């Protein structure tokens, strides 16, 4: 096996890209996909054919990872879809301001102050109560296609 055959190099410089092409047939349930320009988590994949002796196509049902809305798409399974670049980062919570913004501590010691509290009631109350009790809280921020949201919480 020679070095020329090595095709696995990761493109470190491509980090800025928001989406990547991926063959529809390889997208699995629980993976990510862009449908109608929204980043979605795939909750259902089914395949069918265009006519009995035609080619396969994939039917995706996705849930928008930011607003929970359901979206659907049908793509020939040998074609490419867009897969979103979904990033999750943990930050320590340092403050909650009165206007509903949070103050987060980044890894390099700066603060990040441009995020609102989540709208999800369960998560919201856990954050508020935990913060009021003086617990050390770590929040996970999910970002994709230029959007950001707090998506999880952990008490350390």
């Amino acid at each position: 096996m020679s070095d020329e055959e090595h095709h696995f190099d990761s493109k470190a410089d491509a980090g800025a890209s928001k989406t990547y092409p991926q063959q529809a047939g390889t997208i699995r349930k629980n993976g990510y996909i862009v449908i109608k320009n929204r980043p979605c988590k795939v909750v259902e994949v089914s395949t069918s054919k265009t006519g009995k002796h035609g080619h396969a196509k994939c039917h995706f049902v996705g849930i928008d990872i930011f607003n929970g809305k359901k979206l659907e798409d049908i793509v020939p399974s040998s074609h490419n879809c867009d897969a979103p670049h979904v990033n999750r980062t943990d930050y320590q919570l340092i403050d909650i301001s009165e206007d509903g913004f949070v103050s987060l501590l980044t890894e390099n010691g700066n603060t990040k102050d441009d995020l609102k509290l989540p709208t999800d009631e369960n998560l919201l109350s856990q954050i508020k109560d935990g913060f009021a009790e003086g617990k050390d809280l770590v929040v996970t921020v999910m970002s994709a296609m230029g959007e950001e949201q707090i998506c999880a919480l952990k008490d350390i």
Partner: protein
Amino acid sequence: MQRSPNDLSQLQATMRAIELACSSIQMMVNPAEAEATILSFCQSPQPYQACQYIIENSQMPNARFQAATAIRDAAIRELEFSAAEKETFLAEVKQATLGIHGADVQFIGINFLESLVSEFSLSTSTTMVLPTEFHDQCQKSMELEYLKAFYCWARDAALSMTNKILDSDSAVPETKASTAALRLMLQILNWDFRYSKNGVEGAKGRKNVFSARVGNDNNLSRRSECTVVQPGPAWHEVLISSGHISWLLSFYRALRKKFSCEGFWLDCPLAVSARKLIVQFCSLKGDIFHSDNGQMQENHLLQLLSGIIEWVNPPEAVSKAIESGKSESEMLDGCRALLSIATVTTPVVFDQLLKSISSFGTLTLLSALMCEVLKVLIVSNAEEETWSWVARDLLLDTWTALLVPIESGGKTGLLPAEGRNAAANVFSLIVESELKAASASACSDDVDTDYFQASVSAMDERLSSYALIGRAAIDITIPLLTNLFNERVARLHQGRGITDPTVTLEELYSMLLIIGHVLADEGDGETPLVPKAIQTQHVASGESEKHPVVVLSSSILNFAKQSLDPEMRASIFSPRLMEAIAWFLARWSSTYLMPPEETGENSGSGYDNNHMVQSLCSSKALLIFGEHNQGKSVLDLVVHIATTTLVFYPGEKDLQALTCYHLLHALVRRRNVCVHLVALDSWHHLANAFANERLLFTLYSAHQRSLAQTLVVSASGMRNPDASNQYVRDLMGHMTNYLVELSSKNDLKIVAQQPDVILSVSCLLERLRGAARATEPRTQKAIYEMGSTVMNSILIFLEVYKHEFAVVYLLLKFVVDWVDGQIIYLEAQETAGVVNFCMRLLQLYSSHNIGKISLSLSSSLLSEAKTEKYKDLRALLQLLANLCSKDLVDFSSDSTETPGTNISQVVYFGLCIVIPLISLDLLKYPKLCRDFFSLLSHLLEVYPEMVAQLNDEAFSHVLGTLDFGLHHQDTEVVDMCLRALKALASYHYKETSVGKVGLGARAAGSKDQSGQMSEGIFSQFLRTLLHLVLFEDYSIDLVSAAADALLPLILCEQALYQRLGNELIERQVNPAFKSRLANALQSLTSSNQLSFTLDRMNYQRFRKNLNHFLVEVRGFLRMI
């Protein structure tokens, strides 16, 4: 009967009250009050005398009717009579049944018997809160003492009405009663005869005391319509030698002539009942016939058949009549009768039956009938189920009953020559009709049917029946298939680029399925041999090339080969056609490609010499695809075709699934084939493409796992272990290097989140997992290296991808499979390394997941997250269980003195990490539940002493889950809990009996904060277990396990056991039961020289005792 005047006046008063009520209902005067009167009469206790009086004396038919109804209701309500009462009562019923009191009462009498019989048959009895033992006795006495008498009454009743019915031109009241009589007779013949079978089938007759209602399962089988009737020799007189059947047949024949009259028609209840009874007679079997070489049974069947033949013969006329509006029920009943006869005879006897009364055999009739039905099917082509569907399925079942070889008894699927022609005729029409159906459906866009797996399994049963028929005459059917196949291939070529090939493609698809079924059997993981019917049938030509199977196989292989040509592929080989080809090649290869050499030598046993020689000829001819013949070139072709489906059909997941899971798996299943595989260039190319080229990354990731597994398995075909290991290293080395490099990147945190990197990592993990699953002693070393190279990277990825559930799961699953394959081979130092790695993995996972709360934006996402959690936990449990196995099986070369890793410590530590993550809610997932309990029971069995060291919280959690598991529906879970209990209790007993503490305070019970004494764990479990074995429903398989757990529990808590036993005895009201229970309890702990030790001998004795005990007492302790 003597009656005092006082009684008499009272009876008269009752009668008058009832008569009054009846007439007021009739005249609609104060109906509510009248109804109340009758209702209270019906519900009064023991109304028999009054009823009898009314029936004998009242002039009003309605009153007599009400009285008879009241008897019926009361008799069912109050099953217990004194003997004398019973006699009088039954005499009364007999009178009624025979029609002494007129047709109305006769009808009620017969109906009463019908409900009585169904009440006594356990499967249809109502719930009465009486001991099961009582039900059994009722059933036995019913069968031995009454059933035959009831049958005779019904028969006599029917006989007595014959003339009246046949003489009248319209329905008379007797019709109803006569129908009921026939129905009762049918019902009696449906009885599950247990006691009259000369004790030959004693095992079947034995009652299962452990679960309430059994014996219904066999009715659920597809051929439920032909349950064999075996009432035993006592019934010979009544059913066979009395001329009863000829009466029935002539009665129905006479009835047929009256169908044109008013009140009678083909589907009138009387005709239906008569036909059902006739069909039921066709399934008579067993020692009701004298042992005279089946002569008596043949006569019996012939008699029936000569009556039935009018229903189905001549087939064309019958089907024409049905198509033009006649009811199909008689024809279908005729088919059912044929099915029943086929079930109780051999093909030869079956065929002979008709020959003695007509110019053709029964097989010829069957064939003609089937052909007729198929013709109707071809023409009508209806979507919904019509009579022809039902008839086809019935007749197919009949063929199957004739052709399926019975394992013992020497009955084979071989037909007489004439029958073979009949089968061939049917088969050609079958193929025609399937082709017609295929071409009709070719252009329909029906999404439901075009998924390959679904369509095959739905058709599979039908196709298997077709295959049996086809194999009955391979010298005709296989050449036919070859011609039809070649015709279609030629049509494709001619029309290429000119006409739309869809219809022909669909026909070829359908043909490949049929041919696959005819030529080969499903292996189900084993190597299927050439079907016996093909092996043993005489084939005229001795040359291999001309053997019809070889000719057909070659045609298909040649056709499949054309898919390698890009132009042909584009114009002809649609994904769906390739699916059929891949499926066919997989099935065909397992049987014919490089078969194990000894085929044919043993297969002839049981046949005469002549057959043996033929079978050898036939299988020798088929060796043309063997290793020393064309085998290698065919194998090469198959590999090329498989690669083609993976490379040139992008995104065709279903096709590729067939290739990966069926075709390639079939190739590497046998080592002799692997030897040739690894020598092929085509295989080498496939392996190389998989290891080094981007292209195969576009396969679905689970398919990649399977492919990796297949490729690693094929390494067993290398010359020696070193070569095999090198093969695996070459294959997997690149992939592990990539993972290691990636995990050591400085900017991993950023890079790792890119979708393409996630995809690559996922695919590689799947591949590694596939390779790990293929671990064999021969390749173990290379696969160990593969895993240990990435151990560190795995931990890094677990941290980086902690939010990517899908990747986390793949990481865990890889480790599970890798440890599973490796652990038993590892040396002490390697073991320490792997165990240490697993602990770090567990800790890391736990630190990410305890106390985490996620966004619950959408309920479906939330439930997804729960499922993911469950899958992760299951993987962790499997990991722990795999680690455990090191203590049981160890192939390492270390001597036992080397201080190894203490697995028990490690696994307990692991369990403490995992337990907080497992809730009772999660245990509702059946697979997780099994895994959890198998781990738990294993731990408690092997290391009971560790339980004492658990902290309180973990300890009570463990016990809580045990209690939960004991009441689980899954037998295996209960069994595992019982084993765990046995281990705990016997450990404690053994320890304490040598003066140690055992489980100490935990066994003794304790005071909680409020000062209340709570019982020790063994007391609690003794109660629970006793209740379980005595009163609850469970599988009979659990009795031994329950005995093993119960014995040490009793020994640990002897005082409590005595107390519980006494309580049980005191609770019995019935003195007979009381003493039986006391004796049974006594012998449970004393018979068979049971002692106070816990050795194997003693456990066995106690198992025996408990079994006896339960059989003795559960009958009256449990209420149904």
